[in-house]
């Protein structure tokens, strides 16, 4: 499985990569915001997207909407990561077609669960 991790903070990308490694997912691409992620997706195929919420240039929600409006990538399971269980943000993400979300802090098992549910939602 190849995963695209999108977060403007390199340390957080490393943390997520380390958690993914603990569930045996080591093929990881990185992007520092939604705009950069779309460029990555234009040149590579991935099986899952894990994106932060607040990022410069293109936020997680904007990136999510761009993905779900693109026939070529809308079937890629999309998980959003947030530090706060803000109901308004989560509702907006759900309306915009997010396949699952996970609230920091999370265990490798929680992430695995979130991935499985996101994959099931898009029928993968």
């Amino acid at each position: 499985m190849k995963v695209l991790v999108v977060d403007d903070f390199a340390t957080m990308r490393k943390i997520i990569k380390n958690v993914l490694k603990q569930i045996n997912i080591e093929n990881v691409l990185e992007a520092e915001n939604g705009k950069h992620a779309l460029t990555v997706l234009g040149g590579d195929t991935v099986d899952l997207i894990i994106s932060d919420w607040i990022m410069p240039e293109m936020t997680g929600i904007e990136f999510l909407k761009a993905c779900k409006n693109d026939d070529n990538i809308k079937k890629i399971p999309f998980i959003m990561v947030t530090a706060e269980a803000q109901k308004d943000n989560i509702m907006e993400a759900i309306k915009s077609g997010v396949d699952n979300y996970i609230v920091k802090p999370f265990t490798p098992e929680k992430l695995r669960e979130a991935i499985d549910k996101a994959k099931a939602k898009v029928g993968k």
Partner: protein
Amino acid sequence: MDVKYINPFIMAAQSVFRTMLGIEVTLSKPVIKTNRTTSGEVTGIMGLVGDRKGTITISFQDKGALFIYKTLIGDESSAINSDVVDAIGELTNIISGQARKEFEKAGINLKAAIPMVIVGKEIELNFITTLPIVQLPFNFSVGNGTQEVMFLDFSFE
């Protein structure tokens, strides 16, 4: 200080260590911090504002910070560098985020500032408040029977 202001920080530290690091921490007796210096050698600082206001600091000695870095990121570092500093900053962010969630359950809504990290031993650090500064010492094992401490200091009103 009202215990309802202390418990969210205890629960946040324990929860974050358990979930993000896979480590159980043990809380030693909370004390009132009387000195005006950082408690460890790598110290993350976060301001909180909203229905209440306050500041928390999370401080480790070198060995503890390097262990946290290794466990959180999966890389090893033999010295405190910018990567280790960033990891402690992110841990400060996550612990304060979890504490805010705990406060939210009690109907207290808070927002966080941007974390800062100070590196150095016994650096002068002044909480500008007349309220007591509570220090929560959390012990954790770094293997080979060695224990390290994370000091979570805060003032909250």
